[in-house]
């Protein structure tokens, strides 16, 4: 408002409004403004089940599930700069752990989560440990192979996994005696998972480990010269990513009550990767946008049907060539 020249009357009115806005924003610095937006978003998400129909809830629940997977893969691809093409395998590890333990050994759903975390870590270390010592490209192809191994194992170990037709009769989780069997239950369950995943991602990103990922991603040699164990740091990322997927897989199994190997195909991994790239690798809000776009797009444009993955492929190539930072805008420094 310190303009030396007097503005024309019409402009004065609008700038008066702008002035009010400015004064309001004095109360809200950048940080609290962001808090406010976040709060409103959470409020909106929490109140949707009160108004939305079950179709909408189903889609949104599915989106939440993919947000968690994207945030997990983002730790591997976005933070540590590693390409994982078998991410669905970890989600399979979680889903099958819950599936097998509840349907065949009658475990309580909640107890299967630590077991799934354990198996995800084991699988992550077995695959990542040897491979991460080599050039990063090897990881991509080994994970691709691992994805196949997992799927084949799920098909072939019939006594345990139900073979190609899969497992049925997985126990649903219950919460203080309330069996979670409505779509809005799962809506909230997955929403809480999203909040948790965002929280953990955020804290990791802004920590010693998060910085180490960035150092290794930007210049592996320099990071090593600074005393950073690049293999350990990458393994951390790979295993944490695995745990995200494993836990998401448990809830997936609990919600669906039936799983089969075909859910965990390469296409699944490619789809999650696609969302991560679309949203912008390394950016938490980007993951949310990417996953939403990925789920909503085929819902809105139903006619694309079988061409969906073709479109994804084209978008993937175009994104990397023309906008590698993703659709979420860059923060200005």
């Amino acid at each position, binding site marked *: 408002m310190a303009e030396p020249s007097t503005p024309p009357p019409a402009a004065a009115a609008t700038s008066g409004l702008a002035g009010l806005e400015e004064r309001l924003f004095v109360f809200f610095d950048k940080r609290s403004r962001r808090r406010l937006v976040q709060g409103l978003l959470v409020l909106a998400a929490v109140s949707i089940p009160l108004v939305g129909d079950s179709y909408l809830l189903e889609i949104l629940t599915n989106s939440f599930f993919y947000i968690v997977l994207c945030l997990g893969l983002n730790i591997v691809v976005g933070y540590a700069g590693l390409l994982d093409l078998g991410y669905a395998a970890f989600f399979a590890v979680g889903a099958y752990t819950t599936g097998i333990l509840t349907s065949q050994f009658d475990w309580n759903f909640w107890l299967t989560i630590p077991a799934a975390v354990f198996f995800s870590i084991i699988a992550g270390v077995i695959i990542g440990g040897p491979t991460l010592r080599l050039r990063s490209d090897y990881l991509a192809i080994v994970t691709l192979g691992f994805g196949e191994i997992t799927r084949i194992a799920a098909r072939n170990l019939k006594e345990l996994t139900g073979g190609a037709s899969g497992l049925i009769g997985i126990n649903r989780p219950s919460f203080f005696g309330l069996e979670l069997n409505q779509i809005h239950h799962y809506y909230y369950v997955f929403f809480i998972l999203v909040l948790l995943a965002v929280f953990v991602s955020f804290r990791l990103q802004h920590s010693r480990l998060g910085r*180490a990922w960035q150092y290794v991603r930007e210049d592996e040699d320099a990071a*090593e*010269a*600074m005393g950073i164990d690049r293999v350990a740091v990458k393994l951390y990322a790979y295993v944490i990513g695995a745990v995200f997927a494993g836990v998401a897989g448990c809830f997936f199994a609990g919600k669906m009550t039936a799983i089969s190997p075909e859910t965990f195909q390469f296409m699944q991994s490619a789809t999650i990767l696609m969302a991560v790239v679309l949203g912008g690798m390394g950016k938490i809000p980007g993951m949310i946008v990417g996953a939403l776009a990925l789920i909503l797009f085929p819902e809105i444009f139903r006619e694309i049907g079988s061409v969906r993955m073709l479109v994804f492929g084209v978008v993937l190539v175009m994104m990397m060539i023309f906008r590698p930072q993703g659709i979420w805008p860059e923060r200005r420094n």
Partner: protein
Amino acid sequence: MRILQVRDLALSFGGLNVIDRLSFDVDEGSIVSLIGPNGAGKTSVFNCLTGFYKADSGEIRFMDQPVTKLKPHKITQKGMARTFQNLRLFKQMTVLENVMSGMHCRTRAGALGAVLRSGSQRREEAHIRSVAQECLEFVGILALKDRLARNLPYGDQRRVEWARALATRPRLLLFDEPAAGLNYDEKERLIGLIRRIREELGITIFLIEHDMGLVMQISEKVVVIDYGKKIAEGGCDAVQCDPKVIEAYLGREDEEGAADERNRS
């Protein structure tokens, strides 16, 4: 006491002997220079010392422990830090974050600490930050701490690299051509800085440098190599007069003469 002992170090790439049975020592608390013509193998020696290249044979002892087979990060943890001939900063990160990388090997917080933000984790973060700031202060660019590394002028980027190496809390610091690309003033300040690193922080300095003025001004000992072989070692004066050194740098008398001859005709 000898902080670094190199014995019969050898390295070859596809039949080319880049380092050829090289032996020398660096005394604790001294400033030693490694010089030699372009392609003599100086950077390769550094790469062997810091574990980036695996020597074909020979032994490297650092503070009386063998480090020949260690990984680079282990060697840094043991107290040997380095800078790179071509700047290797984390370009997309701030100056402060760059320097904080050095403290990584002196701290321990892991994933759980990060998520829970425990008290010890927060104290450690604060400690990392303060050490990094001290190091920036030491090299004189604390004011630039929030700038992105890639946006700094060349001379300042070099200083970020020095601060980053200092932040690993080394006992021995290897500088690979620290003066390359610096102007006169910056070189003067570099000389002062190297002396202060030794005097105030008690860190031993081993550097590669092509600027002979600088080398002669600060080194207590000079090791000269050519084609990976040591051709001279000793005090500045002795090395400067050594005919083998003159020959390595200037070519042999008769070659020189022949070249002149050719130029004239």
